[in-house]
């Protein structure tokens, strides 16, 4: 009887299974297949070259540079956004006049396209007439060429993305803060806990579910960073701030090397799995209940 029921439920799941296969597994499988071909991305002819593209990936200095940058973006943005988001959540969780307006203002940049924000922020960082350098000159200091090197541009992109999008992380923590039972905090205060100790030993540990969600979401989003780099630094100078998603796009649509781009995408896919699965497992093992 149990077996028959299972089969019936499987039939109900069929549409969803078909969708997952069609929209998830098929594109991934096709991308993997493309990696074995020499193909310009639009011709109806493809030439099978075996592992040639995959071998080339590991000798490509631009791939390693983009991988390094992608890891910097992924972990850097996740860390900075979480620190900022947590601090802001504590701040806007207090009661004061204009709290709703401040919350909205912090969240606002997250609702605007990354391309637009990148363009706007370009005029903050530019060497000649940029807002930051005008301030430095006004203070009697020398202007700084913020985006002179690849690493400099990478850090600029990292900080810009983190500052602009920390509003979404703030909201996650804010929801977590508002779910913490007040009686726990009150009893801590009765026991003489200072404000700092209360946050460190009670509030932050109880925010762990929010933290897990925030870390996982930010990590995945930051691995795919594209728009702000594209409009703020263009991935330059000389690919110094490019990410793997930008590099894949460049190989596929710019250099017309779709097969090779697919090979990079597959390597990238496995890099994400290798990194995100253990992190996810470790974070999931740290569940708190209250």
């Amino acid at each position, binding site marked *: 009887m149990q077996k028959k029921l299972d089969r019936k439920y499987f039939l*109900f799941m069929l549409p969803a299974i*078909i969708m997952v296969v069609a929209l998830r597994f098929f594109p991934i499988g096709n991308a993997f297949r493309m990696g074995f071909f020499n193909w310009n991305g*639009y011709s109806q002819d493809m030439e099978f070259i075996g592992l040639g593209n995959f071998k080339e990936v590991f000798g490509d200095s631009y791939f390693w540079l983009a991988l390094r940058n992608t890891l910097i973006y992924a972990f850097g943005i996740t860390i900075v956004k979480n620190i900022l988001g947590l601090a802001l959540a504590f701040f806007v969780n207090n009661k004061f006049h204009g709290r709703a307006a401040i919350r909205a203002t912090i969240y606002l940049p997250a609702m605007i396209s990354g391309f637009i924000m990148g363009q706007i922020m370009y005029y903050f960082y530019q*060497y*000649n007439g940029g807002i930051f350098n005008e301030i430095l000159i006004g203070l009697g200091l020398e202007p700084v*060429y913020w985006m002179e090197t690849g690493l400099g541009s990478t850090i600029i992109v990292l900080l810009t993305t983190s500052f602009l999008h920390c509003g979404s992380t703030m909201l996650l923590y804010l929801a977590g803060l508002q779910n913490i039972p007040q009686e726990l905090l009150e009893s801590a205060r009765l026991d003489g806990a200072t404000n700092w100790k209360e946050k460190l030993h009670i509030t932050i540990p109880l925010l762990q579910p929010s933290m897990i969600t925030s870390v996982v979401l930010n990590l995945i989003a930051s691995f795919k960073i594209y728009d702000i780099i594209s409009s703020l630094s263009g991935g330059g100078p000389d690919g110094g701030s490019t990410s793997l998603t930008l590099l894949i796009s460049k190989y*596929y649509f710019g250099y017309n090397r779709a097969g*090779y781009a697919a090979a990079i995408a597959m390597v990238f896919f496995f890099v994400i799995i290798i990194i995100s699965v253990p992190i996810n497992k470790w974070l999931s093992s740290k569940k708190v209940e209250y």
Partner: protein
Amino acid sequence: MKKLLACLLSVIMVLGLIACGGGENDGTGSGSEPAGSQEADVQPGGKPTQSGGEAGNQLAGVTLEVAVNYTGDSLTAFQQICSAFESKYGATIVIDNYGSDYSSTMINRMAANNLPDVFVTAGWSLRRYKDYSLDLSDQEYCSTYDESALGVIQDTDGKIYVCMVSNGVNGNVVNLNVCEAAGVDPFAITTWDEFLAACEKIKNAGFTPIASNPDAGLTSNLAGTFLTYKGEVADVGDKIKDGSWDWEEYMYLLKFYQTALTSGYFFKDARSINTNDMYERMAAGQAAFIISENTASIATLYSLNPKGNFIFAPFPASKAGGEEAIVSGEGDAFSIWKDSKNIEASKVFLNYLATPEVTLKLLDATSRVSCMKPTMEVDETPGTKALGAVEDNYKGHNIGYYNIWDREYLPSGMWAYMGTACNKLFADYTDSGLRAVIDFLRDGYKNVYVAE
């Protein structure tokens, strides 16, 4: 019974999902042909309509999908042209405006063999889109093309796959006010050495000589003045085309940029300037030249500074006795998908675009240069004016007019390599940096030749 019901529900849900996916044709015109041929309504060759333009609703029920890469004023002008066409013929035009994603979207659509009825070829009617385009050689406007256009769009077998109403023309842009303030006569410049000497004077006068940012145009569009045009320092055109070139002669061009970069002729932050910023600095009178720009940039500069004084100029020659050059390629150019179900209606649309009054509306916005003789006779749009002024300003100069260099000599996909090479050059212009650029270009050239 329950089992049967479950099966039925599943089938209904799957069918529902498939139905939601929709088909390829979504307009009322799907699969329909226009009611008879409309070619008599718009006389090909860009001449006014023979039947007085009363086409009525001859294309009623037809929906044409047209893919373009226009933005800003150009998009507005194109939308107005399409609306006028709809009113005149009763057809519906769906504009796919892919903007800066045009190339990537069209690559995907080619791969899926599912193109729009009409699409902009963006410089690649032969090298990229030929296999997907309808042969338009029998259209009468093809007999009205100027020679400069035929050199760009005619295949080796004489076929033409595009209705090109304008050329995209590329050269240098000069800020005359800055040159005057620095005591430089830009009309006396004939070689790149003289150009560098002018840069030195401009720098000494307190200006930045060159506003350009790293872009494929810098490493590609003027390459012919060193490598392939008459009387230049190298003559390797045939080698480049047959895929045997080792890129060693390209060092001449890199050395030119090395001199300009080490001498401080570019902005200190040149490697990270974006294009808008470049125009703003040029318009504000901070710089004297932009290397490799199209005629549309003149209009952009005047829109930023109406009191400025900007002209279009040819690329200098690599040595005395060489040819200065202006390069041109496909401007506003449209092809028809060879498997379109609306081929006849698409032909009517292209004939409509080729009429002088319609073309001129588009050119007013795109600032490109007309290339069909009937339109050229009456064209006074900004792009044509800017190019026409070159003849007046540079009288007595030996100027050659060529196809855009990479489209003539390099395989599809090389443009992006040229852009990356320019970024590499600006990031490291030491001797070893130049060597790395040559190696990078040689590898890219081999890769795209194989892929092509």
